[in-house]
């Protein structure tokens, strides 16, 4: 999100005995637009990812605003039901694959090499390829809006046969755009794993790595394990649609439920892909502003790994009402509830880190604290949904919508914002404007809760999700939700203002921009020069 151009060429404090190769080549590199198109630099690619993600966040946000405007009152007001369905679908797809995932990859690009003392990502050209696949993929996805028959309209989970037999013709293009985004994710994840495993500065052991690096290592593993499964299932859709196969068609011996199994085998790890890096960010920010070491470092690592392993064993809790055998209902109910244990460990550790800390409440800390509280609410509603018999009541209601928006918006998105506020001084050399940041924070917190908290009540009272019109008794809840959504949406313009201002001017930040910050990125100047750690830095392991 910081479009700041790091100075080039840069005085290098590490250059003395560096190979010099990279620096020399880069100094003659292209300028202007070509510099961004052809770059192999992890900081520039990180910036590209973050700008892309912010753009998608607003496009997906506009779709959400259309949805909330239509639902402001009962009855059909603004859009046709067909278009409403396209808006809910595109909102979900854009936010998941276009906004949240690329934001975390962008943060990883910028910060993982800096936090482990690496000169760049392990495979820099592949890194650039991973990024540039995304604009192509999402241009293709967005173009479906103007295709005959309209954009995908079957929800972001694209269940067959809605997405096969009854799908608009644009579905084939939707499949290809998802293939491109998937290739991007897999290649990006391979790069991140290779970087973390191979490019750490020599004295940094695995158990010395900042938690953002640890959570990304595990996230990258999840990505490589499940994005190919998504590729597989959409390929089967493609064949069902265009070549007359019967994978999801019972008439030929296939099964629509097979689609759901495959999709959620990808989909459940996918939701942890969107939250594990957030855990890492919060685990880095809270100790900084509590001026204490993170409580229970090792248990954080093990909890993250446990969550990742469990994520492969819980997928059918999304399908409790599809007609599973009893033994499957029980297995997936209990395995899902198990996830509360490592997640509880994490929340406990964050709170214990805060306990008796010397707390200050700079903008990153505000967002991190809101994350802990609000993500936990989302976690608890998840636990409610995990109870199979109760889920028969909640399934496909606004309660589910409330649950996953609590973990994704004040969860993942707030963590991304916390990370941006935390690292903006490193990226731009300036502190973000405090007063504006606080306005952004408080408007976002109030907006988010106003939007999503009433959804719990509407859902428990029986309001189904993905409908453009609803019964009169839900009117008040929906009006409050819509007001909150407009407020949240509008306050994100403040975020853009903060970022743009921060790039241009602001209070100058020293190398160590935050008092309690300890990781390696705070040993390089702010803004970070284009090339850092061309020779591995000295790293003093601190006892966790």
């Amino acid at each position, binding site marked *: 999100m910081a479009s700041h151009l790091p100075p080039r060429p840069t005085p290098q404090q590490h250059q003395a005995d560096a190979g010099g190769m990279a620096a020399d080549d880069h100094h003659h590199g292209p300028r202007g637009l070509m510099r961004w198109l052809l770059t192999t630099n992890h900081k520039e690619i990180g910036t590209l990812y973050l700008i892309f993600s912010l753009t998608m966040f607003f496009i997906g946000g506009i779709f959400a605003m259309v949805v909330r405007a239509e639902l402001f009152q009962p009855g059909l007001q603004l859009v046709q039901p067909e278009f409403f369905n396209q808006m809910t679908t595109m909102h979900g797809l854009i936010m998941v694959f276009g906004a949240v995932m690329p934001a975390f990859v962008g943060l990883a690009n910028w910060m993982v090499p800096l936090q482990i*003392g690496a000169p*760049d990502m392990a495979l820099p050209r*592949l890194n650039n390829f991973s990024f540039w696949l995304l604009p192509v993929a999402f241009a293709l996805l967005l173009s479906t809006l103007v295709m005959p028959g309209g954009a995908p309209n079957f929800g972001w989970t694209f269940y067959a046969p809605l997405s096969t037999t009854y799908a608009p013709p644009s579905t*084939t293009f939707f499949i290809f755009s998802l293939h491109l985004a998937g290739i991007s994710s897999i290649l990006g994840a391979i790069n991140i794993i*290779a970087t973390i495993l*191979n*490019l750490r500065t020599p004295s940094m052991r695995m158990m010395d790595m900042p938690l953002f690096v640890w959570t990304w290592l595990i996230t990258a593993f999840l990505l*490589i394990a499940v994005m190919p499964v998504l590729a597989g299932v959409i390929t089967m859709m493609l064949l069902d649609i265009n070549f007359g196969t019967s994978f999801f068609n019972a008439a030929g*011996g296939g099964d629509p439920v097979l689609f759901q199994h495959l999709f959620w085998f990808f989909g459940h790890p996918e939701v942890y892909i969107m939250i594990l890096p957030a855990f890492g960010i919060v685990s880095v920010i809270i100790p900084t502003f509590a001026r204490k070491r993170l409580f229970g470092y090792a248990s954080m690592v093990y909890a993250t790994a446990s969550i990742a392993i469990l994520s492969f064993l819980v997928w059918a809790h999304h399908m409790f009402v599809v007609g599973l055998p009893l033994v499957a209902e029980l297995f997936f109910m209990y395995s899902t509830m198990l996830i509360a244990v490592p997640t509880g460990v994490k929340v406990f550790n964050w709170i214990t880190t805060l306990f008796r800390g010397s707390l200050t409440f700079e903008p990153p800390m505000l967002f991190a604290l809101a994350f802990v509280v609000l993500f936990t609410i989302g976690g608890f509603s998840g636990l409610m949904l995990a109870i199979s018999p109760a889920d028969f009541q909640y399934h496909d209601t606004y309660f589910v919508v409330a649950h996953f928006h609590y973990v994704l918006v004040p969860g993942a998105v707030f963590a991304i914002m916390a990370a941006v506020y935390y690292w903006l001084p490193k990226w731009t050399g300036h502190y973000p404007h405090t007063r504006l940041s606080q306005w952004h924070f408080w408007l976002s917190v109030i907006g988010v809760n106003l939007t999503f908290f009433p959804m719990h009540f509407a859902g428990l009272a029986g309001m189904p999700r993905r409908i453009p019109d609803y019964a009169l008794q839900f009117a008040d809840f929906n009006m409050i939700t819509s007001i909150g959504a407009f407020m949240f949406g509008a306050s994100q313009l403040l975020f853009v203002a903060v970022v743009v201002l921060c790039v241009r001017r602001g209070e100058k930040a020293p190398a160590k921009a935050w008092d309690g910050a300890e990781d390696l990125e705070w040993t390089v100047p702010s803004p970070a020069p284009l090339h850092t750690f061309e020779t591995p830095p000295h790293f003093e392991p601190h006892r966790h």
Partner: protein
Amino acid sequence: MSGGSYYVPPSSKWPVLGSLALGALMVGTGVMLVHGASGMPVMVVGLVGILAVMWLWFRDVIHESRKGLYDDQMDRSFRWGMGWFIFSEVMFFAAFFGALFYIRTFALPWLDGEGAKGVAALLWPDFTASWPLLEPPDAAIQGPEQTFSPWHLPLVNTLILVGSSITLTVAHEGLKEGRRDTARHWLTLTVLLGLCFIAIQGIEYREAYVHYGITLQAGIYGATFFLLTGFHGAHVIVGTLILIAILARVRRGHFSEDQHFGFEAAAWYWHFVDVVWIGLFTFVYVF
């Protein structure tokens, strides 16, 4: 661990051109599928583009490698990269095998009325579950007339592919010991075996369509058969192309006795394709 000489390549135009070419390939194929032949030119441009980009990109990598710009740490990055790439391929096939097992173990017996979920049998009361499924539930879908014996062409192909893994290992041993003629001859033999496999698979597909009634449209048996063998076959084709490129490099005197990761990466990929085939032979053809 970083030794201080890690090579960070300069700006490159191949990644962005590659993504555009891949985008063109996807758009062109999509237009062909949805609107017909008008998508063909875009698809061809995309396909040629991506092949050209791969050629030029890998050429850069080979030049850099031969100029000695890569150190041991870079070598490890390539190893991790290739290893995790193959793991992603494993998961891609795992999805297809998972689908096959789910259909055979759960979906078909339930359609036949078995167990608590057997109410699905109300849809097609006359349906009898069997595997291979010769008669799909709905009469509108024409099932296969018969299925392959695993002990003819599929067995031959199994021997060919397993044999090619062995010949490739012999070539690798030759390279490691500096016997380049051995390496070249056995690698050539491996490529020929790969081509034989592809040809026999082609013959089998023709048999399937012309004589056996096994088609993509022949219900779930045909669908899973072509999904699994088709993607495997595509991987054999890619693997053979990789081996041909490696053979060309061996003939030009590339690779040393202790530094030849390009060769090893190709070998890893080939062995992976071989292992997938053994899974296929077992669960698609034999059982």
